[in-house]
């Protein structure tokens, strides 16, 4: 856990996960940006201090930050560090929509694998929409 200006930025690394460690970091920071737990403009821990906190390689944390930069989630200013990128609300919503669509695509693939029909899937969704 990395204490961050009052807010606790949580990053939990699982060694038994099938996901590479850098992917785990990307997912968790991205999630905290999208949910607004990390504000735009907020400074992220340096690559080295994050590596120290998590006891992992600096190459891994660097890789994670580079990935988040590519996604436009964070910005790195040379000599100053990395910050949550300023992004307008529309764009943010759009990005979250894309992520949601990606997840639905995964669901569809899984459904095809299990030979679940379109109708069955729609019914499942309806039931869940009532329940959750």
């Amino acid at each position, binding site marked *: 856990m990395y204490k961050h200006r009052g807010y606790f930025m949580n990053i939990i690394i699982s060694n038994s996960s099938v996901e590479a460690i850098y992917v785990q970091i990307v997912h968790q920071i991205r999630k905290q940006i999208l949910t607004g737990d990390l504000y735009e403009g907020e400074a992220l821990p340096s690559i080295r201090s994050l590596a*120290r906190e998590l006891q992992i*390689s600096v*190459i*891994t944390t660097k*890789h994670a930050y580079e990935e988040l930069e590519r996604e436009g989630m964070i910005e790195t200013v040379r000599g100053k560090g990395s910050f949550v990128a300023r992004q307008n609300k529309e764009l943010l919503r759009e990005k979250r929509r894309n992520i949601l669509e990606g997840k639905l695509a995964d669901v569809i693939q899984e459904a095809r694998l299990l030979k679940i029909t379109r109708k069955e899937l729609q019914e499942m969704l309806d039931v869940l929409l009532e329940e959750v």
Partner: protein
Amino acid sequence: MDNIIEVKGLKKKYEGFSLQDISFNLKKGYIMGFIGPNGAGKTTTIKLLMNLLKKDGGEIKIFGQDNVRYEKSIKDRIGFVYDNSEFYDELNIRDVKRFVAPLYSRWDNKAFEEYIKTFNLPVKKKVKDFSKGMKMKLSLALALSHHAELLIMDEPTSGLDPVFRQEFLDIIQDFMDESKGVLFSSHITSDLDKIADYVTFINNGSIVLTSSKEEVMEKYGVVKGGKDDINDDLRQKLIGLHEGKFGFEALTSDVDSIRTRYKNLVVERPTMEDIMLYLVREGKGNV
């Protein structure tokens, strides 16, 4: 000058063992694990780096300078951690300090006293009565107390209990910054691997691989499956194949193609230990 250690074509011949063409670089700002089984040539390589042995060929540069020609000024900037207790057997910590401090231009007495306290080392006992772990802690305290820019550690975690090994990681990561470097050797894959940025793997006196740990971990996977899953195409992709009664296990560097072509096989993320084990097994098979 980006590399803090540069080793090119290093050779050393003994009867019955030779280091052949050892080459690797360590960039400033990074930690490298030098791993391999017992007798692979790790300690020999480290002794050559420290000019405690005479090389038969090749080149070693530390801080960009030849390690023999500039031995004195280079060693002033290196913290060397190894089992060196035999030199100090009859001494206690105070005597050891009196002996070692003058060897370094930037000896820091305050730092040393701090480490002795944090490491809970007995001040009055003779070094020969120390446990193995205490000896290693003393060596570490000496190495960290003269503002070294490079730590070279030969099997530093041997003899250390799990609790201290954890603290050890913190100490090493606190030591690190953009201008420093750490090289440590290990024959068991240890907690230290967690913080290593690069790994160089040595077996039978030759380098098997040297690369960022990230790349190595992504390149390889452990494959498991039933015995009837093995065919000639698959066999070619497997490293260090072990066939048991109920199935097989192997390493592969073809993770993607195996995942797409052999859907019923299990492909797992490897540990450094897996990689070492299967590569050594493969090496034995080839001889």
